[in-house]
């Protein structure tokens, strides 16, 4: 077949001429259009759009997605865009996609996990470095504005560089694993901003900073800030010229620049790294008689038997995730007793034991009245 312009007999693809495209179901067409719109809103490269659409088509053909609800199909499109971004190291968070789709995060999560499994997609982890750059793009503090005091405006490159360093430090000190990434970046951005001009900015609170910057302050960010400050304080205790000062979480901010510069050395001295064989052997040797203190438990034993001295001096502690430093009260019951393990499952069951679970006639009458069945 040819086009109406008969000057040139150009070859036309079969799919274009026979209306094969029109045979795509309306649902699929709508879904594809939605995926494309999403890519345009996020200003993604064209190549992403093609990949996301192809994932979407593959997914919809899959038996597990073919018959799911329309709501889920809508989320499926978002998941495909999300996966594509991740595979290209484009730092798109689930939070962003969910808000664009007005989706419940649990539902999005289940569709995403199914998609990953059914299509066998390998999705690389979210790159924190890229997330820092993208997240800081939305901060409003890099240009002068009416509502932003002059000393609050900051150079973007400087802030990105320092925030990156703080996020890396957080990662090395176990503050990142298992946690939501965005609150960490927000807290790091705040500290980096404050430390670049502490004189003018120390009085500004985290909440005010986020408002001025025009970004959300997610609830975990306060805790991340606290944890970061604690790390910096410990590092400060190892810097000779800072030991004379009584550092607190306000004053340490002034020295973050120095602390970051010497972080490798400081980390090594401020925390005992628990990965040494001798330490573990010693710890296991004297494991049982030593009753674990309230914080840290066995992990602390493993880490620092020989660091005890330094612990008392410089406040060094094992480099561990916060959940191991401050363990929550254990609700778990003790291991099963010997009597429990002697159960065969075939024990005789007494009538009286069963009868305790049955209502007497008066009780039934009273219950009936109350329930009005």
């Amino acid at each position, binding site marked *: 077949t040819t086009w109406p312009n008969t000057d040139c007999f150009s070859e036309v693809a079969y799919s274009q001429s026979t209306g094969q495209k029109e045979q795509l179901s309306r649902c699929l067409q709508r879904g594809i259009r939605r995926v494309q719109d999403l890519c345009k809103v996020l200003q993604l490269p064209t190549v992403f759009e093609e990949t996301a659409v192809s994932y979407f088509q593959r997914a919809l053909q899959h038996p597990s997605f073919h018959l799911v609800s329309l709501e889920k199909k809508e989320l499926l499109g978002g998941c495909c865009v999300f996966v594509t971004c991740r595979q290209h190291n484009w730092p798109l*968070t*689930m*939070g962003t996609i969910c808000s664009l789709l007005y989706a419940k*995060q649990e539902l999005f*999560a*289940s569709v*995403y*996990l*199914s998609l*990953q*499994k059914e299509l*066998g997609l*390998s999705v690389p*982890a*979210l790159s924190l470095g890229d997330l820092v750059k993208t997240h800081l793009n939305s901060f409003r503090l890099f240009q002068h504005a009416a509502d932003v005091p002059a000393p609050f405006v900051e150079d973007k490159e400087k802030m990105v560089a320092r925030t990156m360093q703080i996020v890396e430090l957080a*990662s090395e000190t*176990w503050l*990142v*694993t*298992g*946690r*939501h*990434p965005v609150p960490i970046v927000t807290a790091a951005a705040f500290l980096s901003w404050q430390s670049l001009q502490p004189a003018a900015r120390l009085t500004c609170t985290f909440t005010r900073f986020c408002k001025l910057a025009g970004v959300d302050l997610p609830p975990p960010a306060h805790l991340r800030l606290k944890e970061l400050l604690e790390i910096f304080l410990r590092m400060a205790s190892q810097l000779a010229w800072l030991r004379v000062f009584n550092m607190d979480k306000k004053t340490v901010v002034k020295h973050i620049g120095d602390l970051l510069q010497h972080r490798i050395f400081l980390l090594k001295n401020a925390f005992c790294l*628990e*990965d040494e064989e001798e330490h573990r052997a010693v710890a296991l040797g004297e494991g049982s008689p030593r009753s674990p203190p309230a914080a840290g438990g*066995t*992990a602390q034993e*493993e880490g620092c038997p020989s660091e005890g001295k330094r612990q008392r001096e410089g406040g060094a502690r094992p480099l*561990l*995730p916060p*959940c*191991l430093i401050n363990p929550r009260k254990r609700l778990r019951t003790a*291991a*099963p007793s010997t009597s*429990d*393990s002697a*159960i*065969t*499952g*075939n*024990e*005789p*069951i007494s*009538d009286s*034991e*069963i*009868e*305790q*679970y*049955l*209502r007497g006639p008066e*009780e*039934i009458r009273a*219950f*009936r009245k109350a*329930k009005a*069945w």
Partner: protein
Amino acid sequence: SEFKDDLSASPQLFTPMSPYDVDLPIQTTEDVLFGSQFNQPKELPTDFSVDLSFLPDITQDNKEQNLSEDGDEMQKELDGSISRNEDSSIFMDESSLSYPDATQPSPEASGVCPPLTPMTPMTPVTPASESSGIVPQLQNIVSTVNLACKLDLKNIALHARNAEYNPKRFAAVIMRIREPRTTALIFSSGKMVCTGAKSEEQSRLAARKYARVVQKLGFPAKFLDFKIQNMVGSCDVRFPIRLEGLVLTHQQFSSYEPELFPGLIYRMVKPRIVLLIFVSGKVVLTGAKERSEIYEAFENIYPILKGFKKAS
């Protein structure tokens, strides 16, 4: 009046019950729902069996069951040998042991169901051999049983103290007993789910007690096809784990999305167990039909976690 305790004579049978082959909500401490289908088996470095294929849901034992319609006759025949096997606490299902050349008795040929010969387990009875020295603790067992009679749930809720029934919310009676501390979901079809026990035997004992309650309420409840559907265990390797690194080196088995869930979800192929691995070093293992799978899965993951810790 005394009800004959015919429940104690019923042996365990390995029958796939289709309503319960779906994944039941698993009570883990983190309250996560996940499916147990897996990708194609990948090459895993193992130092035991060469056989890397999945265990199909229908095993040789199930084929035996499918031959006869009435479960009761089978029960009496297999009673003798099976009750012996029930007492072995750790390795219960011989067909899941990893030696590829083992010949199983073939029931189709003989026409009569032979007693199951307990085979000597290849792996040592104590799961903590020379490797980790850590034994995962069982936290929850989910089992199902068929009471084989239609039940009037309203009636049960009226006459039993330990029952909850909100038909608008859920179409089953929720019943609890104190010892073993468990919860049961009892459906009008006569099917029952028992959750919360800490061992297979406790789960069975609890299920029998629920069946007894139902019997005492006047229903002709039996105790058919008791089956352990899922087992959950947990333990602590006692060192922190860099999940972001683990997901890189074991990408085909791992899913780590801190935006969704703080733990790494590791889908082990052999045995077919799902592990939740947390930064604290705590590990949850689930999806097992037998406790040997939990122990085996942990022994498999421990060197990975340990070797990983050194490298980081």
